């Protein structure tokens, strides 16, 4: 009986490792290949050396990437766009969820239902009418001392940020989490003379760490990874995000070492960020929000 149990747990562990190998091997291959010259990548492919940083290892591919693509600019753009989207997204969505969850606002049921209804519209169906629509929107620009009025948001930073701030799923996650925070805390704060915004900022939000972390990551990932949208609305090179940079590599004579270097360059920051927050992230999704 005991032997059987031991055998079984060893078997389970083996399956776990198998899945881990399948999940990790392409990423390891990408990172390792980014350090090798093209010829060696193909030479190593038929042996385990494909996954090992051996042979002629250097950062040459990375230097070449910065020559071919304005990679620093793209990274900066993506960091900026993602950071602003995440910060504004956390603020706007949690504020809305706070009012819907903890205040007695007339009509809030209808508003909440309308917000949740937006979840059934996939972004892809909106993308094309949205391109047309943002091209009609007015935009004010401070040019020196005069406020200039222009039409069309195409080819700007705000077109990459503002449409993605408000998000029904984030509001839903915050709402679910706020419901689990005792309302007595609000009452106590109100007796002490706190206004609603103060309660939001000083009572509820400090307790909503896990929900905030989840929303932050779920907003950051699509912002960093966005491809379809910037492809359609951004033309100027200096405004492009990292994913669009991939197109620079599909000209004649693809250097796969350089492609792998660029792919690693735009993936590693996210992976590092994810590993730093992984405990709070995986656990908070698993325990707090995403429940049917």
């Amino acid at each position, binding site marked *: 009986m005991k032997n059987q149990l031991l055998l079984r747990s060893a078997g389970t562990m083996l*399956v*776990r490792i198998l*899945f881990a190998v399948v*999940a*990790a091997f*392409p*990423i390891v291959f*990408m990172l390792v290949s980014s350090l090798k010259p093209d010829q060696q990548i*193909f030479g190593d*492919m*038929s042996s385990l050396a494909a996954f090992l940083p051996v042979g002629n290892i250097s950062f040459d591919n990375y230097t070449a990437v910065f020559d071919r693509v304005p990679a620093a600019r793209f990274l900066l753009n993506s960091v900026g766009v993602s950071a602003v989207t995440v910060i504004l997204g956390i603020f*706007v*969505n949690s*504020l*809305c969820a706070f*009012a819907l969850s903890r*205040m007695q*606002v007339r009509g*809030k049921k209808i508003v909440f239902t309308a917000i949740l209804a*937006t979840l*059934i*519209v*996939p972004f*892809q*169906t*909106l*993308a*094309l*009418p949205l*391109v*047309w*629509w943002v*091209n009609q929107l007015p935009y004010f620009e401070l040019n020196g001392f005069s406020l200039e009025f222009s039409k069309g948001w195409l080819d700007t930073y705000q077109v990459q940020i*503002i*449409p993605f701030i*408000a998000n029904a799923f984030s*509001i839903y996650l915050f709402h679910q989490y706020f419901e689990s925070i005792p309302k007595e805390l609000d*009452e106590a704060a109100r*007796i002490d*003379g706190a206004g*609603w915004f*103060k309660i939001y900022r000083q009572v509820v939000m400090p307790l909503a760490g896990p929900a905030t972390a989840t929303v932050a990551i779920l907003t950051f*990932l699509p912002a*960093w990874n966005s*491809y*379809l949208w910037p492809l359609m609305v951004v033309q100027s090179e200096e405004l492009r995000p990292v*994913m669009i940079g*991939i197109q620079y590599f599909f000209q004649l004579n693809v250097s796969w070492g350089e*492609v792998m270097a660029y*792919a690693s360059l*735009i*993936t590693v920051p*996210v992976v590092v960020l994810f590993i730093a927050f*992984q405990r709070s992230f*995986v656990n908070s*999704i*698993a325990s707090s929000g*995403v*429940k*049917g």
Partner: protein
Amino acid sequence: MATAPLPTRPRIPSGTHAATPPSHAKPAPHRRPGFRREQLSGWGMIAPAAVLLLAFIFIPAILGFGLAFTNARLISPRPIEFVGVDNFARLFTDPTFYRALLNVAYFTVVIVPVQSGLALVMALLINKKFRGVNFFRTVYFLPVVTSMVVVSLLWLFMYRKDGLVNEILSAVSFGLINGPDWLGDPNTAMPAIIILSIWQAAGFHMIIWLAGLQGISGELYEASQLDGTSRWQQFRYVTWPGLFHTRSLVLVTITIQALGLFDQISVMTQGGPMDSTTTIIYEAVQSGYRQQETSYASAISLVFFVLVLIVSAVQRYLTREKD
């Protein structure tokens, strides 16, 4: 009234200190004190999100519906004209559109059971605490944090005739299998895209399954252990019924994701070879963005939306709670 003890939720206008004697706080005739203030603050807090959702989801959705019946172009000097169902007539006589529908159906029918099944197995493997559980959770989730665009690029390289996938196949079969040119052959292009899509996204649905598994009370497992049930019976009679709500969530999210297939196609095959991987969204983007035909793209988007609605409704009906 206004200073009643905690359980009855006193509403005291901010600025009024609790120590103020009740006679000084003049109650409004019908409404609790602070009612107006609460309405104003509440709507003020809802407004930013509500305005943004209105501007960037509701209005474009309605616009898309309207534009589908016009001849609007992204940039055009001519005024927009109403053209009735012309766009739809053109769409429903376009053989590429039917090919796209077929491809998406193929993709979805394979992805939904395989990906949700593998994701459930992964979730079960890392559900209970053991030494190194965080390591495995992180590794299983790594493909999800890697963008689909990067993943597509990476697999584009691995799927070459002389690429890593074929080298591995040849190695594990001792040279017996001589892999195809995966993305160059109309018969293998879609399966190749299916494999990489599952590889990238299964970790996300693993997390949703995990949330469901963590929600099942441990007492149920203890009780079943006392009854001496086998592992399979435990899964069948405790775990599976406990995942009822999670199941429909996973089903719906995978399906909607699958129907909207785009990134992989755009990076890897551009719909080819011979339209074998073109999809509805890919066709919409081609006409709306490359040819700037906003109206035709809106018509495709509208058909796509109706398709999503129908599929979700059917799924809801099939997975409804039975007595």
